[in-house]
């Protein structure tokens, strides 16, 4: 009778270990899957900024010495997939006066989810393309809605 009790106890212990193992296993799998899309988040931010730079949208935002952000916001709306949000902080240095101005575009960063970030340098030319008027650095933060 005693032996049977021991066997039951051991059986229960083994079962408990198996259940705990299964819980750890599934928790780990869930975590593992949630890590991979982060790479896509980072790449999306990087691509958006590269497009803004290569298509000349950052350059063309400078009009009569003023940095107009409307066109950049509109371009982001067109480019960025609807389930993402992005915030840009653009620092411009006047190439003659060497003074800096900072402009922010997009919503505030959330605190409860993964945020991808990166940075890109660029220069702004005048309309004729024969004078560099500003040096710029654009920093982005991108996240899933």
């Amino acid at each position, binding site marked *: 009778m005693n*032996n049977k009790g*021991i*066997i039951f106890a*051991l059986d229960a*212990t*083994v079962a408990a*270990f*198996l259940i*705990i*193992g299964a819980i*750890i*296993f599934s928790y*780990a*799998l869930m*975590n*593992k899957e949630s*890590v*991979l899309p*982060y*790479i896509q988040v*980072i*790449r999306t931010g*990087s691509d958006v*900024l*590269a497009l803004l*730079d290569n298509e000349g949208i950052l350059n063309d935002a400078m009009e009569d010495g003023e940095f107009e952000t409307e066109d950049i916001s509109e371009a982001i709306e067109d480019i960025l997939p609807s389930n993402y949000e992005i915030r840009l902080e653009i*620092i411009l*240095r006047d*190439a003659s006066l*060497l003074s800096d101005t900072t402009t922010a575009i997009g919503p505030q960063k959330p605190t409860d989810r993964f945020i*991808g*970030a*990166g*940075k*890109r*340098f*660029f*220069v702004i*030319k005048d309309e004729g*393309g*024969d*004078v*560099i008027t500003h*040096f710029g*650095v654009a920093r982005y933060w991108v996240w899933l809605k």
Partner: protein
Amino acid sequence: MNRHGIFLSIGAFIIISIVITLALVISESIRGSEAKLEDFGSSDRLYDLFYSVEKSVRDIFFVYSPINITIQNKVDGTVDVTFKEMLGKSNDDYASTLNRKLEDFEDFVEAKEPKVDLDTSALRIGQKKDRVLTLFIEPHDVKYMHDASTGQVYLRIEPTVLNFNYYNTLIDTGSQLINQGYGVGGIRWHISNSGTFNFTLSAKDNSGYSVTRQEFIDLAKTNEFRIGTQGGTTIRVILDGTGEWGFLKVWTPNIQSEVTFTINLQATNEAVKVYTEAYLSVNLDDFSKKDLVQIAP
């Protein structure tokens, strides 16, 4: 009965070991995924920083330097690399604005991102001891040099091996009209020996006059061509046989002339690119990239 107990203990031990091993493997795998995420993130940031700074330097260079570069792939697989620039300008004319802009941009980049080290001094020729701006055509290893070492800017082409087919040089003397009575139609030449290398020299001026001279020459000998102008000065084009592979030098003393030089390179599997001596390095976490700044295409 005792034996049953032992089997049971061994069985339980094996199952527990499997569960623990499984948990460890998964935990390592998660850590691996996170590390991979950091790696991907860092390599993307590195890529963005490196290529955006390189592109900006390229933009500044092409706005303020007198040199234009085009690379054209031809149907026969060969590649024409063409440099176009004004010669005869003083070093200060060329360098002052470009130098200042490059220096200011360097300061800006390093202030905003300390992990980037940008050295554009090789492009700021006024501040170099030898006052020579050197561009490299790769993978053919041909040097194109804008040389201000003698006070007057001239250009030199220095290939290292015979991996090119011909040189074309067009010199536009602008308002300094060509003296059509000089040599034949304005070009005089001193050819040491005829050979197999195809060299074409053309000249034109603002009056619409143009003259072309094509010769097959021996690269191992020194050959000199001169273009005469009505002002009395001459533009010298020398294929220097003392250089092993046909160094070419163009002087345009006291005359502002636009020189268009084309070198036809033999076919290669690699894409032809032009680099400067300026270097850029970015160090992020375990990732780093250091390279010469690519200026074309």
